[in-house]
């Protein structure tokens, strides 16, 4: 489902990151572990087609990303990838419902109110549809963001530090919801985290330590 081969990324003004190869099956869960700055977010951005690797290949659901033009990658991302960023990026100019509708807008597909209501219902926040994001609690906001992530029924859900700055109980609930959502969509779930609680909560997940190859690359650049 997700395969990477000899993946390398070079920052415009910085070091080159090399990543070990990854192979995750459809519906599986992958934990990207590593310290801050190890390259977890970069890996997620590469997998979402938001960054272009310097070398190597990413194949997701049989689609090699290097074969897609920039525009095609945007369209592909809209249909295939659900991205849950660490900072939730809910727009306060819009209501919760309109924030979700942005996913339809970005994908360029007609708005489907049934899907929208179902996604909010699945995460137990249907009654918040008319509120502004600033009126929500942290947990509510995360549920709303998650509802937006799964709205287009993605094949892959990429979550960046979903438990950061959450207490144990909320973190656990959040992870269960994430796992449940991925299960409902039969999506492959990738969670980038340095939080040890995540591994405990998802014992069956494949763990991929980021930083070994990256660290090696770092040392390559030193004299």
């Amino acid at each position, binding site marked *: 489902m997700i395969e990477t081969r000899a993946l390398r990324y070079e920052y415009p003004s910085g070091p080159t990151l090399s990543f070990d190869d990854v192979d995750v099956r459809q519906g599986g869960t992958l934990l990207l572990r590593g310290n801050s700055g190890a390259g977890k977010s970069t890996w997620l*951005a590469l997998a979402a087609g938001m960054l272009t690797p310097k070398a190597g290949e990413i194949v997701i659901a049989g689609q090699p990303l290097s074969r897609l033009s920039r525009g095609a990658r*945007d369209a*592909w991302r809209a249909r295939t990838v659900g*991205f849950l960023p660490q*900072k939730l990026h809910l727009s306060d*100019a819009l209501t919760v419902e309109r924030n979700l509708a*942005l996913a339809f807008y*970005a994908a360029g597909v007609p708005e489907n109110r049934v899907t929208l209501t179902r996604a909010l219902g699945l995460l137990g926040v249907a009654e918040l549809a008319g509120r502004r994001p600033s009126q929500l609690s942290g947990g509510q906001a995360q549920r709303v963001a998650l509802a937006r992530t799964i709205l287009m029924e993605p094949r892959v859900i990429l979550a960046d530090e979903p438990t950061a700055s959450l207490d144990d109980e909320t973190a656990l609930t959040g992870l269960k919801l994430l796992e449940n959502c991925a299960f409902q969509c039969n999506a492959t779930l990738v969670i980038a985290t340095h939080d040890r609680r995540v591994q405990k909560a998802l014992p069956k997940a494949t763990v991929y330590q980021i930083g070994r190859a990256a660290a090696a690359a770092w040392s390559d650049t030193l004299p």
Partner: protein
Amino acid sequence: MKTVALAFRYLWSRPLQALLNLLMLTLGLASITFVLLASEQIDRAFQRDLAGIDLVVGAKGSPMQLILAGVFHIDVPPGNISLQDAQELRKHPQVAQLIPLSMGDTFRGFRIVGTTVDYLEHYKMAFAQGQAWVRPMEAVLGAQVARSTGMVLGDTFVGSHGLGGGGGHDHGENLYRIKGVLAPCGCVADRLILTATESVWQVHEKAPMPVAAPMPDAAGDTHEAHAAQEPPREITMALITYKSPLAAATLPRWVNSSTRMQAAAPALEVSRLLRLLGVGSEVLRGVGAVLLFTAALSVFIALWNAVRERREDLAMLRMLGATPTKVAALLLSEALWLALLASVLGLAAGHGLTALVGYMLEAQHSLPISGRIWVPAEAWIPVAAVGVATLAALIPSVTAYRIDVAQLLNAR
């Protein structure tokens, strides 16, 4: 959700800022609309009043004054000419038509002009009620006079002496009877009370000479009352049409050099006048342009801030799969919404302002200006608005287009 709908929501997510920008753009567009409307209508009024009059002949003095008094009725005439001189001029081989005008009295600020029915025919005036005068002391009211005084067919009135309005004595024993009311023409005849030349003679020949020295009549004690006590009779001026355009080369010079009268060519004087007025409308246009530029700057700042404030929103849209073009189009649409709303409001405000000025001018019996007409040049208002908004949105849109999604998501 369409881009335009989303842009509208984003625009009004900061209502105060949106309103201020809208106000700025609207003010700029409204002032330009006003200048367009006013200058076009003044131009048209001049053209309409001038139609077919090749030459104005009157007493020696300022030619501009002669035109303003004789054609537009907004100045006092320089003096009188003898009827005999005018009659001789009528016989000149290059004169096709000569319409005499006799002025000197007003009724409630509206001028009473003695002339022949040729004047009505010349301006192709239609009657709303009644008909032209047949005998002396019968009068025809212009549309604005009728509306403003509320007089109707059969009513009588007396003129007051002088063109200044309200300064002179009444010609109490000489009653004018209203014989007809003209349909509105949007020209000078709307503001005139027309009667036979003989009426003016009759009023002033019977008028008692003031016992004491007459009050100096600042507005122009020009009429023939004092001279008319003994013949020969006088008129104030004459409007002339040429038999052929060639007359323009010789007739004015002949009148000026060989008679006691002065000839003034309206086309020449009006273009001189419009050049003088032109400075005023250039200034107004300049002010409008400055307003518009300020508005553009404010829209630019607003959009620039919007990009900064909404960097994350825009990056999030990219993350959700929106193309860079779509994100840039979103910002551009916001600017276009402002342009559209400002065009509508600016045109409405411009017409409102013109109507207000027109109302004030009408109260002063001056130029007819209406807020209800549209001029073709107004089509440029939305074009200017869209141009300004697009220009202001250009840099913010490009910035939005180039937003680096990954970098933003990495930011904690």
